């Protein structure tokens, strides 16, 4: 069936890709439909730092012409996407959400953009983000705060704020983000879409503006697990330009999704260990998601958790030291061009001894080994919250505003269950599982063993086949 123009943005990524490939619509039609929706929503959400209408339509027309000649570049042929404004493209500015890089024109194109181009994607603009990917809320004093797709008074989550909000509002079919402590999973959770942080080394970081070389993970945000798999299939795999990428084969991420039974899958839960840290509304939605997973055949058992606060602090040590090193020249020359909270977040890194930084890096291996041997010994996946509280408001989390201890306390809770897995480098996915009384999304997190992205996505796909939380479309 030929999709109506108004309905086009409501299709999933995989659906619109198939519609374009089969000639039921065109790349230009899909791009025009997204651009129209972007025009309507941008004043409310501020998802985009830049919208490239002409470039997107030209690229879409080129994809249609290729298709007319019988040439399909790949699985994303003609599909409109947009990404966190931190993936370099030669001759173009990527701001990293900062004033420092507002006019920085890239001399090279990131491997990620090359791979998406090679698969046929159309880029419609550059998405808002926390300054230099530092901050879990989506506040940005330079380009304006990005707002939650379901309620403009609430945070979009950061640092890939625009990616989460734009995908949820159906402005684009998918987006890339980067995750150093929560930054793919949190905006996905806050906006009711799926966000996958792959295993460290699964996806290249070449040409991605860094927050912390050791803990940055680039990953997809989309409405469904299937759409995330399509994106990940394109961007994953070894890259000679990023020596930290793994040479382990990626494998077929889509084929395993044909199996929607979870029989034999073992899911670990922390039991009462974290109960005190979880808001009752969130706890209730998490519990309901477990019941669905059980109904699909998964076995659920309580597993021991390590001290997540220790993992958090070790990760924080690494992030602060690496950020201090890379930002030092700009912090010395242009301190006034940083948002206050970003500067404050980096500063401690100058005062941590090198021995502590090196020990933090050494601990990654031993802590990961222990986690796999103890927490994951008898399970395939670990089930946790993403955000342990209902999505807070912009005001409640404005560290550059009135601030105060209440704000610091709220912001401090936001990444408690996500950052540890950046230290360990394990894959983790954020999955919508309900809405709080105020109408904001709630999500659960599944953490896997190294390189278990196919299993994670298969389980999330089965869950989404049995639920419809991800089908709720925000209204303007």
């Amino acid at each position, binding site marked *: 069936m030929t999709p109506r123009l108004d309905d086009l943005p409501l299709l999933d990524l995989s659906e619109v890709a198939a519609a374009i490939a089969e000639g039921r619509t065109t790349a230009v039609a899909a791009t025009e439909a997204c651009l129209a929706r972007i025009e309507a929503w941008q004043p409310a959400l501020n998802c985009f730092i830049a919208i490239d209408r002409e470039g997107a339509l030209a690229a879409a027309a080129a994809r249609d012409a290729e298709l007319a000649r019988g040439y399909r570049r790949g699985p994303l042929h003609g599909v409109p996407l947009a990404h966190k404004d931190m993936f370099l493209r030669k001759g173009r500015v990527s701001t990293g959400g900062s004033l420092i890089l507002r006019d920085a024109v890239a001399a090279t194109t990131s491997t990620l953009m090359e791979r998406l181009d090679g698969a046929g994607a159309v880029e419609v603009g550059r998405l808002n983000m926390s300054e230099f990917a530092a901050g879990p809320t989506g506040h940005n004093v330079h380009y304006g705060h990005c707002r939650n797709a379901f309620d403009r008074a609430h945070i979009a989550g950061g640092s890939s704020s625009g990616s989460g909000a734009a995908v949820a509002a159906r402005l684009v079919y998918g987006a890339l983000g980067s995750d150093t402590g929560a930054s793919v999973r949190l905006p996905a959770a806050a906006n009711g879409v799926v966000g996958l942080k792959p295993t460290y080394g699964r996806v290249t970081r070449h040409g991605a503006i860094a927050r912390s070389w050791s803990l940055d993970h680039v990953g997809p945000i989309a409405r469904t697990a299937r759409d995330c798999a399509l994106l990940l299939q394109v961007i994953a795999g070894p890259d000679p330009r990023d020596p*930290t990428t793994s040479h382990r084969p990626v494998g077929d991420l889509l084929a395993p999704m044909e199996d929607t039974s979870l029989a034999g899958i073992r899911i670990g839960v922390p039991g009462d260990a974290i109960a005190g840290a979880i808001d009752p509304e969130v706890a209730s939605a998490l519990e309901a998601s477990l019941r669905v997973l059980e109904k699909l055949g998964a076995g659920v058992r309580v597993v021991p958790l390590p001290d997540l606060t220790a993992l958090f602090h070790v990760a924080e*040590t690494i992030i602060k030291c690496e950020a201090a090193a890379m930002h030092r020249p700009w912090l010395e020359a242009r301190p006034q061009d940083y948002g206050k909270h970003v500067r404050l977040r980096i500063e401690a890194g100058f*005062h941590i001894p090198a021995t502590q930084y090196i020990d933090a890096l050494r*601990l990654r291996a031993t802590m990961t080994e222990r986690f796999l041997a103890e927490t994951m010994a008898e399970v395939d996946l670990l089930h946790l919250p993403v955000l342990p509280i209902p999505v807070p408001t912009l005001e409640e989390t404005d560290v550059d505003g009135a601030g105060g201890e209440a704000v610091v306390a709220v912001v401090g809770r936001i990444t408690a269950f996500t950052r540890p897995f950046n230290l360990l480098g394990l894959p983790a996915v954020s999955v919508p599982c309900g809405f709080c009384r105020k109408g904001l999304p709630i999500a659960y997190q599944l953490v896997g063993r*190294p390189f278990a992205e196919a299993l994670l996505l298969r389980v999330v796909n089965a869950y989404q086949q049995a639920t419809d939380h991800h089908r709720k479309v925000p209204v303007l």
Partner: protein
Amino acid sequence: MTERTPPSDAVVRALQDLDIPEARAVELAAEVERLNGTVRAEARSLTFGDEPAAHAAVLERGAS
């Protein structure tokens, strides 16, 4: 926990050649002490042969 005094922060500031107000330096000292304290405590489990590059190998070995 013993209370830290400003002189040690002043030394660190001098080493880093950064201009930080005294009040902020005290805040930073507390933050750095918290992070260093955790790392030092956890690092007691490290052995001579534990090196940063081992993490990639752990991920490869730990794949199911």
